């Protein structure tokens, strides 16, 4: 009897063991993936999927063949890239050696201390061919404008180098209108004039959150409105702000495409590209990717690109949307990563990059006639950069603020709330959020 029990016992253990063996085996198989080498053999770049990283993907192999370092580009869509970076930084993960960052993310990463300083660690200096605002946008704390309370007194460092010189601009059909609109009143007049069935006088990019926010901020600013004043006081419910959003979501909306509350950039560009709309705001990436793209667009050569028209404030303020390259703190290949950035922004390499669809920040390239031929928006971009475009408020709370503001604008576009009600409610929410984050209220 005893012996049977013992045998039984052995078999039971064997059963359990047999069922559990795959676990450690797999554990082992999976944990052997990260060798530690001193010499950099591979650089991993977290990039945004789309027209912004297309040229980077094209020039990276060139660097690979020159340097012998394998370049791996991991692409994420816009929203996910930001979340991915924040979570990776929180984990201080070494997954990425370089990351592409939209400029409004800079405050969050700066506040987190997530990036390696490029000036003090790797000897980056400002190049006179590149507008100073481009360096300012990669600097933390911000060299001008209000500084978040928690960041006051920190020493300034350069953390990001712009590789996509995005500034939001304006486009219209120059084959239809002979003169460029110089003010938002002209824009409205043109919208009314050219609007007809199946051809929309204006395109609103009104999808909730980031799209609606990006589309409306230049108008908000040009009307003298703002999100914060210079001491972080919320200005969203000021008369100027309300006027601006009323202009967009009521006056212009009369001549806008149906379903504007659900239109994102890709939808807008399709409307422009198939010749069903007259004008809209635009980003350089939309121009190269769709509106002037061979085999796709029916309006090649028919569009004009100009800086954002003037509003009642007397100014037309473009919005910065630079994409920067930074080196995460967690990267074990900092200097190799820095070498790549230096290589990329060298004048010659930048030119190759631009020839592959890249959007430069070098004034010399923006004013290069041959490049301008292929990229009709370069002069407008150069002007916009020279005119010191606005950047989105330099606060690590920006994503929350953008979500609240972008939802309010979307509500107004959809006609769910009056612009005044939507903005008043949004202002209250932003005040609460900022107060909780320790800003003066």
């Amino acid at each position, binding site marked *: 009897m005893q012996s049977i029990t013992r045998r039984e016992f052995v078999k039971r253990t064997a059963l359990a063991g047999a069922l559990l063996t795959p676990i450690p085996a797999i554990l082992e198989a999976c944990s052997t993936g990260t060798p530690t080498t001193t010499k950099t053999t591979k650089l991993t770049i977290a990039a945004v999927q789309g027209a912004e990283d297309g040229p980077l993907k094209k020039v990276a192999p060139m660097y690979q063949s020159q340097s012998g370092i394998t370049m791996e580009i991991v692409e994420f869509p816009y929203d996910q890239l930001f979340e991915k970076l*924040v979570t990776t930084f929180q984990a201080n993960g070494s997954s990425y050696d370089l990351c592409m960052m939209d400029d409004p993310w800079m405050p969050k990463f700066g506040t987190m201390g997530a990036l390696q300083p490029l000036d003090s660690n790797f000897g980056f200096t400002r190049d006179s061919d590149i507008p100073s605002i481009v360096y300012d946008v990669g600097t933390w704390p911000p060299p001008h404008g209000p500084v978040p309370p928690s960041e006051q007194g920190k020493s300034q460092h350069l953390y990001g180098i712009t590789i996509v010189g995005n500034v939001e601009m304006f486009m219209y059909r120059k084959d239809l209108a002979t003169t460029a609109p110089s003010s938002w009143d002209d824009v409205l007049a043109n919208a009314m004039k050219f609007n007809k069935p199946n051809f929309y006088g204006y395109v609103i990019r009104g999808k*909730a*959150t980031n799209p609606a926010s990006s589309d409306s901020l230049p108008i908000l600013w040009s009307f003298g409105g703002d999100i914060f004043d210079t001491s972080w006081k919320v200005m969203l419910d000021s008369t100027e702000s309300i006027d601006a959003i009323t202009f967009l979501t009521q006056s212009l909306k009369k001549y806008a495409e149906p379903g504007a509350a*659900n239109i994102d950039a890709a939808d807008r560009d399709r409307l422009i590209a198939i010749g069903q709309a007259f004008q809209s705001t635009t980003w350089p990436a939309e121009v190269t990717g769709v509106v002037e793209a061979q085999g796709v667009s029916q309006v090649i050569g028919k569009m004009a690109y100009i800086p954002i028209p003037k509003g009642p404030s007397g100014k037309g303020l473009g919005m910065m949307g630079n994409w920067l390259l930074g080196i995460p703190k967690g990267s074990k290949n900092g200097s190799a990563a820095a070498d790549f950035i230096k290589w990329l922004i060298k004048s010659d390499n930048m030119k190759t990059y631009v020839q592959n669809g890249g959007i430069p920040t070098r004034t010399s390239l923006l004013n290069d006639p041959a490049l301008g031929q292929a990229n009709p928006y370069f002069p407008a971009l150069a002007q916009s950069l020279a005119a010191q475009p606005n950047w989105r408020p330099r606060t690590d709370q920006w*994503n*929350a603020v953008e979500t609240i503001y972008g939802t309010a604008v979307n509500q107004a576009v959809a006609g*769910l709330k009056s612009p005044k009600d939507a903005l008043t409610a949004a202002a209250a929410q932003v005040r609460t959020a900022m107060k909780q984050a320790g800003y003066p209220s």
Partner: protein
Amino acid sequence: MNVLPARTSSVRVGRRRLSRDERLGYLLILPSLGAVFVVVTIPFVLVVIQSISSEDGTLIGLRNFTRALENPLLYDAIRATAEYTVLVLPVEILLGLSFALLVHRTVLRPGLRAAIYVLAILPLVVPPVAIGVVARLIYAPGYGVLNVILERLGLMHQEVNWLGDPTLAMLAVASVDVWQWTPFVYLVLFSGLQTVPRESVEAAQIDGANWWAQFRYIDLAYLRPLFVLIIFFRLADVLRVFDHVFILTGGGPGTTTQLLSLYMYRVEFKFFDAGQAAALAVLVLVSFSLLYSLISRALPLERA
């Protein structure tokens, strides 16, 4: 003489084996259950700790909870989630049941049944992101193929703004769910109908029971436990709905289709408000546990 000892010995053997088997049972089940329990409990404990801490880790009591509960967006999200559930659940169950009955009663050719099975499996294997994109290609203003078709059929003269109108947007979002999950309900109920014993059906037919009576007294009785399970699984899934809403409307217009899952995601990954997100998670976990303990009474478990 021979029979009696044999019987007693078998009883003795049975009893001895019983206790040994019991030990074996515990030996097998407890480690696995224990491991799963630990893996499930740790995150729960972490969430609770996070929910009563501030960003820098100091304990701040219930302040995160008051913030979470004072936020009007939470109630919008709850309302949207409730609307979504109320739209989606009955439709899926009724449609799934109708098709299960229809196919069970009228489609007898095995080939056709197999074809229907394949068709029903498809939505379960398409990645949700792709479903979202297809839904957008169907409903979008301008290039949405639904409007194109309606127009060519002469049913529509003015473009319908499927995603910009609050009611239509909610219907559009719900329709994707119905499309994806009705087949699941169908498959479960159809499998259930297969198990209804032929004898009871025939007996009923001989008794002159009509279509309705047959369904009401025989099929339904057999299917009842499955309904409970389906309602259970689908309720649990409501908090998983994400991809297609995100791509289709992004929660808009305004916040009308911002379901609880989208809202929590937003607090966590847009606002990076870890405290409030954890408080929301705790609230959701607690209310779902309560809901679960209510439903689990109805679960077909007792007949063990």
